[in-house]
């Protein structure tokens, strides 16, 4: 049987850059690294350079005035401005590595700003035949990942949406896209609790939405919807925006597990387990139970959405110091349909194998 340490060693041996480790280790002093560094410096200088434009434009019915002190970092509200070089390069890169017959060849030379928010600008470039590519720029001219739609797919997407994951905890949450359904005259963001924010429109159906600070948490963990509204105020379509943090410990990824279990403990003593929380996500689970290392079983109550949280009795806190517990889901007939193991953090550090623990009986 494959041991757990052997597994990690096998993964280490499969390191994709193991054969070029020397190159990577010395990469910082390479010409490539210097070029990248110079690019970073250059980008920052561009982003901090004051705009020389002064324009008044109408966006969503409100006049937006930009002055000499407006910078590229703070979105100017100027629409129709040529895309800066890093954005054009990012748009052009969508064809990177593609054979000629698959290239979209977006018209990056004529890419312009089509929507803006306080912290971002949306740029778009046409694709021959009716498609388009677009790119959110934040922090000045930092591209967030270009998205392209070919002409024959435009009709399949009443509202096109792109939702970049924020680069750090302070980065604004920017979601953008384009309205492709002629019935839709307005859009709004709708959160799981039913509250909404209006989304201002830019040019040619493009829009850029900056999630307000009050909704940042829910946007990161639960996501929200973009809703298209017609001229009668009726909902035409609602499209889900996934949680903007794909690694959120309470987010969608954990929901992919049949059972997800996480322990909580006092960081001062990692041999103790004060309780467990998680979710049962397998179809058909009607009961959930906790099996202690000594075989004692106790039921776990879980919510309609599958989540559970139980605190363990004080006399059980140390039970998992060097042993494994198990959460077991059963269907209506009592058959085991999913299990997951857990133990104390300290026990993990000692690499005790859960596979040696007897499996529960169904």
């Amino acid at each position, binding site marked *: 049987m494959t041991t757990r340490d052997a597994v990690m060693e096998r993964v280490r041996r499969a390191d994709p850059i193991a054969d070029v480790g020397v190159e990577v280790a010395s990469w910082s002093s390479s010409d490539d690294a210097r070029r990248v560094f110079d690019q970073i410096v250059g980008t920052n200088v561009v982003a901090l350079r004051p705009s020389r434009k002064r324009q008044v434009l109408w966006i969503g019915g409100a006049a937006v005035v930009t002055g000499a002190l407006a910078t590229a970092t703070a979105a100017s509200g100027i629409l129709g401005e040529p895309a800066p070089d890093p954005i054009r390069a990012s748009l052009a890169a969508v064809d990177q590595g593609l054979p000629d017959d698959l290239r979209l060849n977006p018209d990056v030379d004529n890419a312009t700003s089509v929507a803006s928010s306080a912290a971002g600008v949306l740029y778009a470039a046409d694709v021959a035949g009716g498609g388009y590519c677009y790119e959110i720029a934040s922090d000045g001219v930092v591209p967030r990942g270009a998205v392209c739609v070919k002409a024959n797919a435009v009709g399949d997407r009443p509202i096109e949406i792109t939702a970049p994951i924020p680069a750090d905890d302070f980065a604004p949450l920017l979601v953008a896209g384009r309205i492709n359904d002629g019935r839709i005259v307005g859009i709004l963001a709708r959160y799981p609790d039913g509250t909404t924010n209006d989304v201002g429109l830019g040019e040619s159906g493009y829009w850029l939405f900056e999630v307000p600070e009050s909704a940042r948490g829910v946007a990161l963990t639960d996501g929200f919807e973009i809703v298209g509204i017609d001229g009668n105020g009726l909902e035409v379509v609602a499209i889900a925006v996934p949680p903007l943090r794909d690694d959120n410990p309470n987010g969608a990824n954990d929901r992919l597990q049949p059972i997800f279990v996480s322990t909580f403990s006092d960081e001062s003593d990692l041999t103790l387990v004060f309780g467990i929380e998680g979710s049962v996500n397998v179809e058909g689970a009607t009961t959930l139970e906790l099996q202690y290392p000594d075989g004692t079983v106790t039921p776990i109550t879980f919510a309609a959405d599958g989540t559970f949280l139980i605190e363990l009795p004080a006399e059980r806190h140390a039970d998992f110091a060097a042993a494994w517990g198990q959460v077991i889901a059963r269907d209506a007939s009592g058959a085991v349909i999913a299990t997951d193991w857990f133990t104390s953090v300290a026990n*993990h550090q000692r690499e005790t194998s859960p596979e040696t623990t007897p499996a529960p009986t169904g």
Partner: protein
Amino acid sequence: MDDLFTAHAADVYGFALRRTSRTAAEDVVSETFLVAWRRLDAVPDSPKPWLLAVARRVLANQRRTAGRQSALTSRLEMRDPDARGGEQLDPAGDEAVLEALAALTPTERDAITLIAWDGLSAEEAAIVLDCSRAAFYVRLHRARKRLAAALASAPAASTERPDERPNQRTTERPNEQGADRS
């Protein structure tokens, strides 16, 4: 900033290069240090996990974009050195490991590879994944368990290059989740 780049650019580059193409890895380095420069006051004294956390999110956005590209493109980048910027990165040793890693959730995969490939401690990896140390150990445990199960049922490791085998199905690199570009 120059010192930060000199000290840790290779770490970020290596992290990215394990998960994307050479050209894209340079972009990850560029964007990561651009964020760092603008958030210098937020960069901790031990910056490597913080930088890799930013790089991980940058990579996630790259994948989101790449998700718009065709599966064919992904395969071309896997197989064609020119499409990957001339590099010859091919794990070539243990395809079963890569397949098993690819079958994990992104979070589980990162828990494994941050330790095994990027050489982080559990505490550092927890910072990268933005979770508590306890939560990280739970994820690592789950990932190891699933990986071990997958490998136990997989054929023995091969040293053949994938493109040398007839009728070889394409293996996506870990963290590359392709979808059709419309």
